[in-house]
């Protein structure tokens, strides 16, 4: 037996090979045209920003792209399924390319090289088919997770199944007809050959027609890639790469120069969506029965982008006119853009790093500029905000008066201190949250921290203005606040609001540089959980009383998912003598939003049950005496929800600062505040 000369006779039993080549060329052309369309739309979002940390982005592509890390998260079977399909497909594709090289350029698939080639491809085929069958079973039989299956989901899987099975059948028929001395190294092909041997005669004739079916479907798949969710095979890794860093802040001035409605990473992300529906399943607004679907939103925007920037808009005069006039707001049904609480649960879930949250915020920016589709309650709040620098009252005299009663140092009255306690609008205006501010001040006093607040000079941080997409107003607020910080020489900052904290930490510094705000200090904002945890670690707080309570901690989105402060609050709770900490079903990165973020404090829920009520129910299941949080919006919403959901008798809602204050401060000192 002559192993050295073993090879495959490419196009064995195939007539009209030229026709196949013509078809292939057309398919490749169609693919290239579709891919060009998609990529040219991506480029409409070009902002000129470059990633800072390329190696980190590449390693994210490796883990999340090549190894499907996030697909495995919380759904192992889904990970196996996708990994099989993906790698099976990639190896089979490479195999086809190698075969083309062998046949048309440099013949090299002989002997052992060919045998190994043949073996690897056989295995890849089985792996892919296994994945596809898993997918079919999960999607259509066991319905592993709520998904919206559309025609193309089925078409893609069917194509892959038929291409895979016809491939093996062809191999079997070929082996059966040629009866080669060495059975290639194609265990599966051989298996098919044996099976066919027993049932079918005329292998050669069957092979001839089946080959064309296999070829036609394979080419159809190639054409279909850029037109369907399959394009995620390019868009997903590209998006994982581009989204490894938080999106750069785009100033109003920069935005005026941009062509598209979305930045590049967002444009890419629209194509990266595979409709896996994990975002929708994690969305608190959706869970409460509101009409928002992050997935639906992303796909809607994908359709909008394709219409506005696609080929028709470029070459068909009438479509061009329509596209030029079309605005994001027109593509969004009713209030869909305003339901998002920006809780980041969708971002956390997305296997391919799409941020539906940022896509939604981006459309808010456009809708703000257009003005028509801004809900009246939000419109009125923003008008108040732009006139009075806070969302609730006009004069600001009431909150200034309340702050005066705190009898703490006040920068605006000429006092000096090391740390600025940024009280926040909610804690200044809302009676329940005022208690939190008092508790935190008593802690600061107890620990001997040199602190002062800004008194009448404290306005709004502008966080929800930013989330609502009124970037111009946000920039004005940031400039004003930096002016105040500069006047009083403030850089160290602590706040009891995750929203103030997050925006000062993430949104202020880039704007400081981009807006070239002169004399603006470098801010070092801390959230009070961070600050208290440090005080405890530094031995500055001594607990003198036990708090014999069972508590559960509700992770506020803006210190949790947005900033990763999961440990600090738990460290604090564990440090308080007597406290027993139990976790809710969903905690840390899976925490369920109270419904207060993203401007939702100014938009009434239309769902079946408020998000906060859903959360209160979940908390009540832990049999905790106290539902602890660390955010004024969470406090307001959960405080109400515990009452409306009927748990007021069994569970209290407290800020973590209140628990700490109870344990460290003597009763009289606490009352004095």
């Amino acid at each position, binding site marked *: 037996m002559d192993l050295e000369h073993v090879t495959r006779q490419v196009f064995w039993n195939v007539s009209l090979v030229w026709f196949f080549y013509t078809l292939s060329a057309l398919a490749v052309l169609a693919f290239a045209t579709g891919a060009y369309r998609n990529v040219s739309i991506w480029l409409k979002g070009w902002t000129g920003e470059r990633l800072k940390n390329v190696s980190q982005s590449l390693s994210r592509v490796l883990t999340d792209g090549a190894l499907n890390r996030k697909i495995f998260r919380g759904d192992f079977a889904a990970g196996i399924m996708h990994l099989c399909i993906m790698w099976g497909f990639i190896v089979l594709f490479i195999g086809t390319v190698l075969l083309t090289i062998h046949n048309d350029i440099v013949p090299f698939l002989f002997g052992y090289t060919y045998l190994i080639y043949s073996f690897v491809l056989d295995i890849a085929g089985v792996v892919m088919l296994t994945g596809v069958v898993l997918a079919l079973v999960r999607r259509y039989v066991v319905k592993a997770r709520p998904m919206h299956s559309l025609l193309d989901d089925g078409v893609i899987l069917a194509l892959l199944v038929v291409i895979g099975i016809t491939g093996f059948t062809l191999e079997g028929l070929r082996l059966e007809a040629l009866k080669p001395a060495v059975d290639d190294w194609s265990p599966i092909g051989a298996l098919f050959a044996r099976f066919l041997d027993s049932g079918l005669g005329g292998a050669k004739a069957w092979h001839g027609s089946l080959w064309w079916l296999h070829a036609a479907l394979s080419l159809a798949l190639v054409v279909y890639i850029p037109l369907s969710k399959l394009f995620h095979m390019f868009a997903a890794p590209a998006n994982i790469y581009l989204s490894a860093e938080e999106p750069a802040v785009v100033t109003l001035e920069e935005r005026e120069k941009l062509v598209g409605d979305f930045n590049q990473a967002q444009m890419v992300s629209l194509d990266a969506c595979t409709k896996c529906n994990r975002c929708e399943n994690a969305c608190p607004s959706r869970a409460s029965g509101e009409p928002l679907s992050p997935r639906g939103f992303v796909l809607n925007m994908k359709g909008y982008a394709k219409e506005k920037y696609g080929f028709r808009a470029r070459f068909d005069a009438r479509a061009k006119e329509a596209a030029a006039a079309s605005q994001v707001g027109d593509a969004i049904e009713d209030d869909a853009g305003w339901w998002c609480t920006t809780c980041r649960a969708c971002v956390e879930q997305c296997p391919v790093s799409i941020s539906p949250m940022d896509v939604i915020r981006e459309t808010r920016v456009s809708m*703000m*500029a*257009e*003005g028509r589709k801004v809900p009246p309650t939000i419109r009125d709040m923003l008008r108040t905000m732009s*006139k009075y620098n806070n969302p609730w*009252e*006009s004069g600001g*005299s009431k909150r200034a008066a309340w702050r005066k009663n705190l009898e703490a140092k006040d920068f605006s009255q000429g006092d000096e201190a090391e740390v600025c306690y940024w009280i926040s609008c909610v804690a200044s205006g809302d009676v329940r949250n005022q208690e939190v501010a008092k508790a935190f001040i008593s802690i600061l006093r107890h620990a001997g921290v040199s602190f002062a607040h800004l008194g009448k000079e404290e306005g709004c941080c502008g966080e929800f203005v930013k989330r609502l997409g009124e970037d*111009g107003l946000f*920039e004005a607020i940031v400039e004003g606040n930096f002016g105040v910080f500069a006047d009083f020489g403030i850089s160290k900052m602590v706040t009891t609001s995750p929203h103030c904290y997050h925006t000062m930490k993430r949104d202020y510094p880039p704007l400081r540089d981009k807006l070239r705000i002169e004399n603006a200090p470098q801010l070092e904002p801390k959230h009070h959980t961070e600050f208290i945890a440090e005080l405890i670690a530094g031995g500055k707080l001594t607990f003198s009383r036990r708090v014999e309570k069972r508590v559960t901690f509700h992770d506020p989105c803006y210190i949790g998912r947005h900033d990763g402060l999961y440990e600090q609050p738990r460290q604090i709770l564990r440090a308080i003598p007597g406290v027993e900490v139990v976790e809710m079903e969903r905690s840390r990165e899976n925490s369920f939003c109270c419904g207060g973020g993203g401007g939702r404090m100014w938009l009434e829920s239309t769902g079946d049950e408020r998000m906060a009520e859903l959360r209160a129910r979940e908390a009540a299941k832990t049999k905790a005496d106290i539902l602890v949080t660390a955010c004024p919006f969470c406090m307001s919403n959960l405080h109400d929800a515990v009452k409306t959901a009927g748990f007021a008798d069994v569970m209290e809602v407290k800020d973590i600062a209140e628990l700490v204050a109870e344990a460290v401060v003597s009763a009289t000192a606490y009352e004095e505040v």
Partner: protein
Amino acid sequence: MNIVVCVKRVPDLAEAEIVVDRSEKGIETEDLVFDINEWDNYAVEEAVLLKESIGGTVTAISLGEEDSEEVLRRGLAVGADNAILLNDRAFDGGDAFATAKALAAAIERNPFDLILTGAQAADDGYAQVGATLAEMLGIPHATLVTGLEIDGNVARVHRELEAGLEEILDVRLPAVLTIQTGINEPRYVSIAGIRRVARREIEVLGAKDLGLSGDEVGAAGSRLEMQRLFVPPATQKGEILEGSVDVTTEKLVSIFASKGWLA
């Protein structure tokens, strides 16, 4: 359709602490926040909505000092095509009649089909400019309009009456309509929207440009003269009696007795 909409910049008084100035004819404005008159805000939105549905142009016009440019620019951001500011020392101190005179002269310079004004201004509350303007231009007017459709050269107008009644009138165009709040949902005007129109030109006209003499406008051309502006003395607070019917009755009787009304 050429639509003209009259707008005014006024202080936001809803929750402000108001201090009457020394002249006793005005208020201290230093700590006040100014904005477009709320009724005018609806009028601008209505004008732009009309333009968006049936086409045409919208011209926003305001009488005031340089600061009033901000309410005109706001109008441009909403969708007005042109903006005119009537700014002249000669206009100072004008009442509704004198203001309407200047507005009429400015509006007459170009062809127009429809003039919208707010039903009244939040500061002086005269509610006269619209009607006076119509009279000066010799065209019909309708006040307190809460709904509006245009059909050819007729405006079908909804008016809110007392006792929950609503009437529908057909008004021949050109006409002046004074707009009531609630006729629409005014769109939000963002900073980005204002910036987009930051460089648009606002035409500034004085009395001479309008062919008006100094004694036709401003205080000299006014028919009303303000005598005094003041905060009326607070009347005594009412007293609310609490408790059961027996208790409150007893209290009431004793109050009557103490006043000597039961003698």
